C-alpha cells in the first residue's frame, strides 16, 4: 500500500487512511486490542503488512508496550484500542508515558458521531479523561481533518518535550471515504513556549568558582541522546556525576566520575555529597520529590545551574540561579567549549570516603545484587533491563552496572506497578538482537502476567525475573518503619509461577539459594522464546539506605528502626 498515490486512485476509508499515515510516519509495530468501535481499522490493517500488530491481552499492556518501544527507540510507540473500556484501560499507560516524557500515540475508536453524547454502548469521553495526562487529546470529527491530525499527533508526541497523544476516531469517520492527500502543511502545533537565550557566561562563572560541584543527570540526557555530550562535559569539568532513577544508563557506571543514584533510596555518599555541594549542574532533570526529599533542606549550600528543555520546569521545585533553557545535546557542548579543564579529585575522594558497604544478609545468600550480577555476567552487560515498581526497582537501579547508553527502563514519575512485563515487549521489539529482562516483584508481576500469552503468540523472547518475597515489599517496608510493623494487606499469595509459566508453554525455574542463580539465568537466556525465573528472596529484606518521606537528604535511615510506631 506504500508509495505515491496514483492519479485517480480510489478514495480510502478513514481506517485505511489511518494505516496509510502510520506507514508514512515510519511505524512498523503497534500494540492493540480490537473491539466494536475500532473494527474498521482492524478490517483495513491486514492490507498493510508493514504494520506488525501485537495483540496484547489487556489494553494497559498495549500502552506500556508502546511506551517501552518509544523509550528504546526514541520514536513514537503506537497503541490502539476500542472505545469505552478499551480506551479507559489505556489510561495508566498514558499517564506513565506522560510523567516520563515518552512519545506514545494512542489511537482509539469512538462510537459513531450520531451516537455521541447519548451514553451509547461503550461510549466514553476518552478525550476528556486523558486531557491532563497527554500532550494532546483530539477527537477527529471530520474525515477531511483525519490525515493532518494524525500527522500532527506524531509531530506533537516527538517534538519538544516528548509525551503521549491520543487521537479518538469515531467509527463512522473510520468508514467514510476520502482521497489520500500527501502532507499539505508543515506541522504547526507549538509544544514548547519560547525561552530567553541561555546565559552561558553566568554558568561558566559559577563553574569556575565552584569547589564542590556535582552534575545531576536526568532522563533528559537519554531523551536528548546526549550521552557523549554529558561525558565530554563531565570529563572536561572534572565534576562527579549523579544519575537520577530515569537518568540511569545516561552515564557509564564504571566511569571514575560516576557516583550513583540520589534521593529517597540513594546511596549515603551520594546524598551527603549533594548536601555538601556548592554547585549543582542539573541536566535534563526536574528535581522530583523522590530526588530532593524535603526541598527546604535540599542542597542548602549549592548554587544551581539548570539545563532544561522546558522552561516551565525552571524553579518549579528548587530555586535556580542560572537557567539554561534549550536542548541539552546542544547546551552541553557549548558549555564544555567555554570551560578551562578542572580537577576535582580532592572533592571526589572526599565523597568516596563516605561510601558505605552494603550490610544486608539474606537467607540462602540469595541477594538482589547476586541475581543482578548474574544477569550482567551472563550477557556481558549487553542486555536491556526493564524494572517494575517497588523494592526490586531500587535494587535494579542501584546494583546493576549499567555501562551502555539507555539500557535501563523504569516507570519513574508515575511509579506504575505492572509496567515491566508489557514494556519489556516493546523494548525487545525495538532491539530484537539484544536480550531483555523484565524484573518484577510478585505484586507487580501479577498485575500484567497475562502478557505471557502475548509473548508466546507473538514469539517475543522476554526473560521474566520475579523477585518473590511474599509481600508487597516496598509498602511492607514502610509499614515496618513508619506504621509499627502493622502489615496491613501487604502479605500477598502467589501461584506456582513455574507451573503457571508451563501452562503458557514457557520454561520456568525457581531459585531459592545463591548457588542456583547463575544456572537459571543462563538457562533462561538460552531458551528460544520467553522464559521465567522466580527468585524466592528474603521475605523482609529492605532497601537501604532510606530517606523517610518528608525528611531531608541528611535524615538517612541506614538500618531498620527497632519498633517504629506511627505518630
Amino acid at each position, binding site marked *: 500500500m506504500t508509495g505515491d498515490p496514483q492519479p485517480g486512485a480510489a478514495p480510502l476509508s478513514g481506517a485505511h487512511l489511518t494505516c496509510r499515515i502510520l506507514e508514512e510516519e515510519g511505524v512498523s509495530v503497534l500494540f492493540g486490542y480490537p473491539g466494536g468501535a475500532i473494527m474498521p481499522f482492524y478490517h483495513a490493517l491486514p492490507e498493510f503488512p508493514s504494520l506488525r500488530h501485537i495483540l496484547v491481552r489487556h489494553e494497559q499492556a498495549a500502552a506500556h508496550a508502546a511506551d517501552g518501544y518509544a523509550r528504546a527507540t526514541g520514536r513514537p510507540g503506537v497503541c490502539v484500542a476500542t472505545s469505552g473500556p478499551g480506551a479507559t484501560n489505556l489510561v495508566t499507560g498514558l499517564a506513565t508515558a506522560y510523567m516520563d516524557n515518552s512519545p506514545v500515540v494512542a489511537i482509539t475508536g469512538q462510537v459513531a458521531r450520531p451516537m455521541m453524547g447519548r451514553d451509547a454502548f461503550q461510549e466514553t469521553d476518552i*478525550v476528556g479523561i486523558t486531557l491532563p495526562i497527554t500532550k494532546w487529546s483530539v*477527537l477527529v470529527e471530520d474525515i477531511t481533518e483525519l490525515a493532518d491530525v494524525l500527522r500532527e499527533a506524531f509531530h506533537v508526541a516527538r517534538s519538544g518535550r516528548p509525551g503521549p497523544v491520543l487521537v479518538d476516531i469515531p467509527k463512522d469517520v473510520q468508514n467514510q471515504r476520502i482521497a489520500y492527500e500527501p502532507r499539505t502543511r508543515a506541522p504547526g502545533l507549538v509544544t514548547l513556549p519560547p525561552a530567553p537565550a541561555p546565559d552561558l557566561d553566568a554558568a561558566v562563572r559559577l563553574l569556575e568558582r565552584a569547589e564542590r560541584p556535582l552534575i545531576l543527570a536526568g532522563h533528559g540526557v537519554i531523551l536528548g541522546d546526549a550521552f557523549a555530550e554529558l561525558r565530554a562535559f563531565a570529563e572536561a569539568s572534572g565534576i562527579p556525576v549523579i544519575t537520577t532513577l530515569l537518568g540511569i544508563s545516561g552515564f557509564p557506571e564504571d566511569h571514575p566520575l560516576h557516583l550513583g543514584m540520589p534521593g529517597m533510596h540513594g546511596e549515603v555518599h551520594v546524598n551527603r555529597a549533594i548536601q555538601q555541594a556548592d554547585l549543582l549542574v542539573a541536566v535534563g532533570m526536574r528535581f522530583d520529590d523522590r530526588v530532593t526529599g524535603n526541598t527546604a533542606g535540599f542542597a542548602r549550600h549549592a548554587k544551581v545551574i539548570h539545563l532544561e528543555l522546558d522552561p516551565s520546569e525552571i524553579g518549579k521545585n528548587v530555586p535556580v540561579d542560572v537557567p539554561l533553557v534549550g536542548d541539552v545535546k*546542544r547546551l552541553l557542548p557549548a558549555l564544555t567549549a567555554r570551560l578551562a579543564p578542572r580537577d576535582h579529585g580532592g572533592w571526589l575522594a572526599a565523597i568516596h570516603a563516605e561510601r558505605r558497604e552494603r550490610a544486608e544478609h539474606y537467607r540462602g545468600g540469595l541477594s538482589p545484587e547476586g541475581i543482578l550480577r548474574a544477569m550482567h555476567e551472563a550477557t556481558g552487560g549487553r542486555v536491556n533491563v526493564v524494572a517494575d515498581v517497588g523494592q526490586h526497582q531500587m535494587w535494579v537501579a542501584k546494583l546493576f552496572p549499567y555501562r551502555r547508553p539507555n539500557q535501563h527502563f523504569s516507570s519513574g514519575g508515575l511509579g506504575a506497578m505492572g509496567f515491566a512485563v508489557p514494556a519489556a515487549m516493546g523494548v525487545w521489539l525495538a532491539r530484537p538482537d539484544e536480550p531483555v529482562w523484565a524484573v518484577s516483584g510478585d505484586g507487580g508481576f501479577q498485575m500484567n502476567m497475562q502478557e505471557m500469552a502475548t509473548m508466546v503468540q507473538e514469539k517475543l523472547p522476554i526473560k521474566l525475573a520475579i523477585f518473590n518475597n511474599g509481600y508487597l515489599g516496598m509498602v511492607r517496608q514502610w509499614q515496618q518503619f513508619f506504621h509499627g510493623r502493622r502489615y496491613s494487606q501487604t502479605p500477598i499469595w502467589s501461584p506456582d509461577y513455574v507451573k503457571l509459566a508451563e501452562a503458557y508453554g514457557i520454561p520456568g525455574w525457581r531459585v531459592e539459594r545463591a548457588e542456583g542463580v547463575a544456572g537459571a539465568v543462563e538457562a533462561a537466556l538460552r531458551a528460544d522464546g520467553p522464559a521465567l525465573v522466580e527468585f524466592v528472596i528474603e521475605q523482609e529484606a529492605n532497601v537501604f539506605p532510606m530517606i523517610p518521606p518528608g525528611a531531608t537528604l541528611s535524615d538517612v535511615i541506614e538500618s531498620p528502626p527497632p519498633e517504629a510506631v506511627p505518630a
Partner: protein
Amino acid sequence: MSRRHALTVDYDGKLVTLNAAVGLLRRRNVPVHDLLLGPGPGERGRRLSAMIESDSPTAERIAQLFRKLVGVHDASARPADDAVARELALVHLRPPAAQYAELYDVCQLYQAEVIEESAEGVVVQAHGPATFVQSCIRALERFGLVDVARSGASVSLPGASGAPTPQPEVIVP
C-alpha cells in the same frame, strides 16, 4: 510572596482547549478568584481571563504551562496591579417609588446607569475595578435588591498581544 495575579489565555475557541485550560488550573491547584470567558483579540479566538492567587514565579510558570497546551495561542500572567482589570455588574432592584431620586443620586456617584426600568423594577449597570463595583452594589442594596449578575474581571495586560506564539526555536548557543 503570594498576591493576586491577572492571567490571560488566548486560545483557539475550541471547547476541548477550554476544557484543557480549566483542567490545568485545577490540576496545578491554583486558587482562582475570577474566571471570565469572552471573545479574544483574534478573529475566531477566545480569551480566558482569571485572577489567581500566587507568587510571581509560580504565576509565570502557570502561564508557561498554558503556552504548552495545544490550541493556546498566548498566555500571560502579571501582578494584578500591573494589569487593567474591569468588571461589569447588572443590579436588579425593586425600589419603593419614594426612593427613586435617591437611587439616581447613588448611581451618579458611582457613574452607574439605569439601563432598564419596568414594573418589575430597575436594572442598574455598574462597571469598574472589582472593589469599586462591590462598593456600588453595597450602596444599592438598600433599594430592594432582587438579583446581581457580575461578569468577573476582564483583563488587559501590557504586552499581551493575543497573536499566535511563534514556533519555538531550539536555543543554539
